[in-house]
């Protein structure tokens, strides 16, 4: 049984690696690439002279202080190790594929406790949607923390299930894994609370209360993986916590209104999930959530299902407080979707078994997975723009007034056009593409090296606008600067504008 999760994890990572090339660099990824470059420079010093490196941690690790160091350290190590053979950006992204594989591994493990089919289906249900599939490619933290959300749960359950007959073995792995999750992203702050409540509600309460203190290993892991904390740790920890407890609110378009500040709609994360994911998956996840809640109310949950309910709830509930920042589509509560998939897979298999048909499981799985597979085929790599059937797909979501896209990765669609038409040294206003991502596009060969980064439409020869409700002023600004309203090219997904390119009249490609 252990081979199946490994196989599924391997195939997931391979699928990400094989489909990553067209995925644009998100704003955040640009920052993490820059951080990885800085950390790599520090690693080179460290391998040569550890004492000198330790003395300079502040200089190399202060960049992107708001996120712990582990994933960026892995991006840096991967780049250091693989760039002789792999392109830079692929080398940075490799650890992300590893985390995507780990997520599949742990979802499969949770599913297998129900049936072999559920073990296969749980990761498939998670990945068979363009939003989740897209996030699996990024050198970011959302899928890694989602994976560890599941991983910490599996390790916790393993520690609780260890038979007394095998003698006492300290749950070191659980403590270390929680430390790793803490070193990936601050979402992990809420996990001890979930585990404590879980431990108090299950029959194995004593064992749980003996296991939980092992999370005290986590600060050691956090400090070991984050050299920024090696000097003045309290100040850096304070900065980390303060950044997230005082996080800025980005404007977000939701049913025709731009949400700018709290209070946000209480059902916001559930509604966005329902609209962004394929409808059969939404229905199945809703059934899974209801099934867990009903069985919880009837006290029929075993330790694993109770934990799945707790972890799924803890992933989404902070975003229903009405004050937590809500930007970023569904990425901040991916673990909510992930932790419901084992139950959803179990329900699907159960429904198929009850039907009593031959191949009923395969038919039901195809019915649920094919719309998501089509979404991937149709929309990849434009994952932040994807909407499901309940929203009326991309055009329906645009009519409803839902956030069109976020970050700036969709710009990849027009880079070949810019490469083909821009005269040497042309200045392009890339709008939401930050300098870090622009540099990454040049580094990866996706953008010509002579194309310059313009600060605004007025000093640009070409403009590549990302359609964002809150940045609508940029388009008239471009019309005023260029004296034309006619785009040169663009990315339109099912007719809905995502990227609109303007060229100054007279320049190559201008209409």
């Amino acid at each position, binding site marked *: 049984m252990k081979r199946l999760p490994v196989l599924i994890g391997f195939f997931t990572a391979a699928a990400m690696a094989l489909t990553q090339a067209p995925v644009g660099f998100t704003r955040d990824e640009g920052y993490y690439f820059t951080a990885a470059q800085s950390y790599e420079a520090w690693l080179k010093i460290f391998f040569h002279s550890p004492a000198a490196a330790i003395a300079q941690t502040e200089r190399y690790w202060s960049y992107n202080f708001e996120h712990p160091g582990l994933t960026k350290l892995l991006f840096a190590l991967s780049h250091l190790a693989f760039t002789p053979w792999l392109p830079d950006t692929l080398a940075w992204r490799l650890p992300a594929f590893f985390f995507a594989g780990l997520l599949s591994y742990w979802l499969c493990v949770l599913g297998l406790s129900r049936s072999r089919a559920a073990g296969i289906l749980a990761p498939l249900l998670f990945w068979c949607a363009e939003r989740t599939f897209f996030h699996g490619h990024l050198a970011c933290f959302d899928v890694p923390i989602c994976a560890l959300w599941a991983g910490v749960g599996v390790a916790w359950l393993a520690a609780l299930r260890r038979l007394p007959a095998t003698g006492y073995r300290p749950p070191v792995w659980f403590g270390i894994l929680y430390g790793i999750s803490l070193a990936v992203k601050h979402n992990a702050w809420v996990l001890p609370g979930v585990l404590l409540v879980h431990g108090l509600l299950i029959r194995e309460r004593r064992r749980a209360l003996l296991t939980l203190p092992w999370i005290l290993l986590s600060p050691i892991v956090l400090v070991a993986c984050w050299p920024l904390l090696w000097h003045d740790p309290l100040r850096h920890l304070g900065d980390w916590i303060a950044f997230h407890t005082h996080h800025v609110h980005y404007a977000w378009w939701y049913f025709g209104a731009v949400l700018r500040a709290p209070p946000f709609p209480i059902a916001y994360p559930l509604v966005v999930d329902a609209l962004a994911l394929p409808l059969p998956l939404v229905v199945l996840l809703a059934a899974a959530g209801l099934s867990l809640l009903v069985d919880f109310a009837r006290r029929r949950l075993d330790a694993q299902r109770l934990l799945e309910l707790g972890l799924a709830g803890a992933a989404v509930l902070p975003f229903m407080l009405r004050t937590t920042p809500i930007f970023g589509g569904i990425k901040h509560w991916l673990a909510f979707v992930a932790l419901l998939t084992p139950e959803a897979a179990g329900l699907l298999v159960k*429904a198929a078994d009850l*039907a009593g048909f031959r191949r009923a499981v395969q038919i039901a799985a195809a019915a649920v997975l094919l719309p998501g597979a089509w979404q991937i085929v149709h929309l990849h790599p434009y994952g932040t723009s994807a909407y499901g059937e309940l929203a009326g797909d991309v055009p329906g979501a*645009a009519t409803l007034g839902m956030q069109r896209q976020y970050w700036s990765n969709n710009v990849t669609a027009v880079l070949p056009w810019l490469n083909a038409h821009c005269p040497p040294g042309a200045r392009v206003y890339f709008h939401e593409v930050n300098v870090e991502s622009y540099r990454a596009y040049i580094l990866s060969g996706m953008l010509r090296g002579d194309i310059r980064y313009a600060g605004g439409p007025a000093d640009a020869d070409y403009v590549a606008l990302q359609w964002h*409700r809150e940045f609508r002023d940029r388009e008239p600004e471009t019309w005023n600067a260029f004296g034309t309203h006619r785009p040169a090219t663009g990315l339109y997904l099912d*007719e809905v*504008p995502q990227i609109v390119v303007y060229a100054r009249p007279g320049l190559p490609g201008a209409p």
Partner: protein
Amino acid sequence: MNRLPAAGYRLPFVFIVVLGIGSLAFDLTLSARLPSDGDWAEAAAALRANTQPGDAVQIWPVWAERARSFVDTMPVLAEEDPIGADYAGVRRLWVLSLPRTPFFSLPDLANRGATPASGERRFGALALRAWDLHAPAIAADLTASAEQHEVDYVARRCVRVPIGAHFAVRGAAGTALHVRAGVIGERAYDNGRPPVEVRVVVDGTPLVELAVPRAERDGTGWRKADVPLPPGAPDRDFEFFVSSPDAGRPFCLAAWTTR
């Protein structure tokens, strides 16, 4: 305990399979409900063949902005409220729409007193119909601006007037003055900002004051004042004084008179 009939056990399975097939069918047929390049080109050609002075195109839904790549003979407008929009200077409005897209609902321009000026023509997934707006004729476009700025998420033809400055122009009076004003871009929503006042003086006599408070809801940032002009000379001096304790926001003004 009663046992369900066999069909009852199959219900969840049947439900999920039907839902999956339905969802996939919706996805796979979506492109058939969207216009092709050929549809756009044909609609643009029809507009080219029928263009008259004072024509403009309103796209619907407002995200159908790919029209800008094809329509080259008249302004393409993306007003979000076609019933309440000014359409200043537009005599005939062509509504170019995608009626087979999800949640499509076209506001009835008859509710603003417009009447159809043509039958509906179809170009694949596109629909085109002209409307006579029966708008009063413009006497003078006082702010006649070639520039456009976004206020309330709509590109508007207006002049940028710094807060604290004034805009003066001489023009035909007509019978009514129409003033529109708003803060450009997202700064309209800045918390705790004082309102902007627009004081209109005609031939040295104060005529009207228009307050532009901080926009709290989308769709409330483009403020309007429509006032009759007292009898007098056919041409007048119009002055617009823009003031606010907070002068840091970009501000846009449009004004015209009608006969």
